[in-house]
């Protein structure tokens, strides 16, 4: 419970600070509010169906990242379970590494 209260306290304090600081504000004119493009102007709003170039990587990433869920408890019992723990996690990671190698071969770890 102390964990939650501490984190809630930090969050509340930081949010209060952020809100207090955002009160000092000038009235912004329309040309001033326009996005900065070095003097240029945009045709449209910047918010768009943004073509994120690493999208396949993120899909592979969330599958791979699940392995962390298993690794944390594994780390705690690693020493007491010894070689067995090593072997099982070795196998698990080898299986997942195949997926990474496949992704690399398909070229997903760069801007598409």
């Amino acid at each position: 419970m102390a964990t939650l209260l501490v984190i809630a306290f930090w969050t509340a304090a930081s949010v209060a600070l952020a809100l207090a600081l955002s009160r000092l504000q000038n009235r912004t004119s329309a040309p001033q509010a326009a996005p900065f493009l070095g003097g240029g102007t945009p045709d449209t709003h910047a918010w768009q169906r943004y073509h994120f170039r690493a999208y396949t990587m993120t899909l592979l990433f969330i599958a791979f990242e699940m392995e962390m869920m298993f690794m944390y408890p594994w780390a705690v019992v690693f020493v007491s379970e010894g070689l067995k723990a090593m072997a099982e996690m070795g196998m698990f990671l080898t299986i997942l590494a195949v997926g990474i190698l496949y992704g690399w071969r398909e070229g997903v770890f760069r801007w598409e």
Partner: protein
Amino acid sequence: MIDALVILLVLFAAWTGWRVFRVDSMIRATFSLMLSFISVGAIGVLLSAPYIGVATVFMMAVEMMVMGIFMVMFMMNPAGLNPMMMVHQHKLSIVAGVLAALGLGAAVLTTTLPTDPVPGETDVVSDLGHELLGPSMLIFETAGVTLLATMIGAVVLSSRRGRYGQADEGSRPPGLDPGGPPAGRQPEGEGGHHHHHHHHGGH
């Protein structure tokens, strides 16, 4: 005290879950869902499941980041600049949702729930570790294979270069109504939105 906090967190989880379908901006919707997950994680921490609780926060922060990226990629008007509701069979869905919640709630209230809390001194994390390496070893390794299949499936489905040529050959966007012009595409020729005539000066 713990009960009061749990009530607060449950209410917050439900409220943020509800906001997901009520806000216009996809980014707000996604991170509202993330807040819902975070409060479930916080309940876990309160109910002596520190590992599961905190790991929920960890995993969901990452997953919701990815989800937000995809929400913005594929939703029209992702930032909700024009307020909108994109729903179908709305009444039916509300009825189904309310019925499901009421039914489950009634089931909870009518059942006598067993009381057998986690003993105070258990080290739940190492319990889980021993479980993973011992009795549930097969589940653990099966999860590995499933994740591998997911990784390969995701790459195969989403990347352009396929074994059978480019995946987008001969594609044409469908209309918002059957047979209509491609949705969300800049209309060609006259009669469109004339975006290019609306520029203000400066070029």
